[in-house]
């Protein structure tokens, strides 16, 4: 779709953003670095949801559950002395497997129904986190989650752990880009645009639907695996509908189905609470109002806004003349 000029611009823009992400934290206080780390972690989860929702067209209001599954896995295993790397794999695989199961209702229902089913599922997972005290510590949660050491280097300092999160995000993005370029990516888009036609062309829509859920969930698990050592504390209240909803918003605000959309959405989601901090108790009220206003004026999100602008002014893009 984009000519060579556009893609070169894109590479330059990516390089600039990467440089900023590497350099800026050197100038920040620990709390700023914490926020940036949180941005990277939530971006991983949102990118996963964007695969499920944006590319494969399957609504999910349960992404927080997978972040939770990942976070609890790492919290439980690393506090038992497991190495982080191994716990990370367990987190991803477990979330992938549970996500696969959540895909089954999606084979039956779509749209609103699916939104509610995934919402119900998310609530169930929350109840398990809260009620199974022997495993999860109940409402008290799990404390003192260690930060990992890599190659003898401790990631205990905020900056070191931030770079670890950033590398994780970069790896996730590269793998996801490769996935979307592969035949699987094409099949996911086909699944979103016209599942019946896709099926008649030999695309096993059943398998791809389950995979869309499982891979998205797996990335949620990866995000959770970094969330636990970042916050160094997990409790059920962190993985409620509110987080699922926030992740959904990151995807929508960033623009559903745009590759870098969730990263932009995550900036808003991480910074907005900070900007609204002065309002104290009114924060969530204002947040809700902002969301409704945003939906009314810009339902396709920020990237959608940019895209709309670009389509109005095609002279600037390198599109081939028909």
């Amino acid at each position: 779709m984009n000519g060579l000029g556009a893609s070169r611009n894109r590479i330059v823009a990516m390089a600039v953003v990467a440089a900023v992400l590497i350099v800026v934290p050197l100038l920040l206080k620990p709390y700023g670095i914490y926020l940036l780390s949180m941005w990277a972690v939530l971006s991983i989860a949102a990118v996963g949801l964007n695969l499920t929702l944006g590319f494969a067209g399957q609504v999910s209001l349960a992404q927080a559950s997978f972040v939770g599954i990942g976070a609890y896995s790492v919290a439980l295993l690393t506090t038992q002395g497991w190495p982080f790397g191994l716990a990370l794999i367990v987190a991803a695989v477990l979330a992938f497997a549970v996500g696969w199961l959540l895909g089954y209702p999606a084979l039956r229902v779509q749209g609103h129904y699916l939104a509610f089913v995934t919402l119900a599922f998310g609530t169930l997972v929350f109840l398990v986190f809260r009620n199974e005290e022997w495993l999860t510590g109940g409402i008290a949660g799990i404390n003192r989650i260690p930060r990992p050491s890599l190659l003898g280097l401790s990631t205990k300092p905020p900056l070191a752990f931030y770079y670890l999160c950033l590398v994780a995000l970069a790896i996730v993005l590269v793998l996801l880009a490769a996935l979307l370029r592969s035949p699987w990516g094409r099949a996911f888009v086909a699944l979103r645009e016209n599942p019946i036609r896709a099926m008649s062309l030999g695309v096993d829509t059943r398998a791809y639907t389950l995979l869309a859920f499982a891979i998205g969930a797996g990335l949620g698990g990866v995000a959770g695996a970094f969330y636990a050592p970042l916050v160094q504390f997990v409790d059920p209240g962190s993985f409620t509908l509110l987080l699922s909803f926030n992740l959904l918003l990151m995807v929508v605000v960033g623009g559903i189905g745009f590759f870098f959309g969730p990263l932009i959405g995550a900036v808003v989601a991480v910074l907005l609470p900070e900007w609204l901090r002065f309002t104290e108790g009114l924060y969530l009220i204002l947040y809700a109002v902002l969301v409704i206003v945003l939906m009314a004026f810009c339902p396709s999100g920020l990237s959608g806004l940019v895209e709309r602008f670009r389509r109005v002014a095609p002279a600037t893009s390198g599109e081939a003349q028909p």
Partner: protein
Amino acid sequence: MAGLLQLLSSGLATGAIYALAATGFTLLWQASATVNFAQGEFVMLPAFFVLASMQLLGLSFGWSIVVGVALSIVVLGLLFKRLLVDPLSRYGFMPLVIATIALGLFIKEAVKTSFSAEALPFPALVPPIPVHMGDVTLSLQDISIFVFAVIAVAALQLFLTRTRTGRTMQATAQNRALAVILGVPVSRMILYTFLLNAALVSLASILVSPIYLAKFSNGESLGLIAFTAAIVGGFNQVRGAILGGFVVGIADNLTAAYISTEYRSALPLVLLIAIILFRPQGLLGRSEERTV
């Protein structure tokens, strides 16, 4: 046995409340394809309108109910439609899903901030006096809730099937294009549906609050329960929503008594997922062929 009967009767009472919320939910879906993720908060809010009328305006309980219901019909019916659903529905379902979730959050937080985070006592229309029938002790309150809800639902059914306006509303819900051709004032019919939903949730709110107390977080589970009840019965039918409400209400009480109170709120969720997986058309619904 006596214990079981008692559980069944309280199940019928809670079920009746769920049925009200589920019926409103179904009506909205039929008329305007609006799935209201804030329905739980819609059931929570009217009780606070009533409390506000009592505390701020110093009205009696009876007049406060009148004011509370009227306010609910304006806010949760008229304003909800005009300010939120109308501008958003043309963008497809995703923005509306997000906006109604945000609305739920807004109502919840607004109540918490302006009233209290604590559960507030709410006066009962009928006091919870025990009624002895043989070895079974039933609560007069449970019985009255059931009676009120059944009267409301029966009145609704009569309205929808016997009055001209009601029948026109149903015709609009079934085939909007045809209704437009026949000169039905479609947008007014849809507005009536929103007002009806608001009235139903107000009634549910006034009936449920004496039992569970008025609390900002009451809507969290009620919304999912209303949806579950609507699905269990078969999404597209008012009869289904009523049946679904009772099924969920009874199952809810039985779980709490025999299985686990901790997982009481899990039951509707499990029921919802099971129904979707094994009988997506609901208990009363007919299965539809997927058209190509």
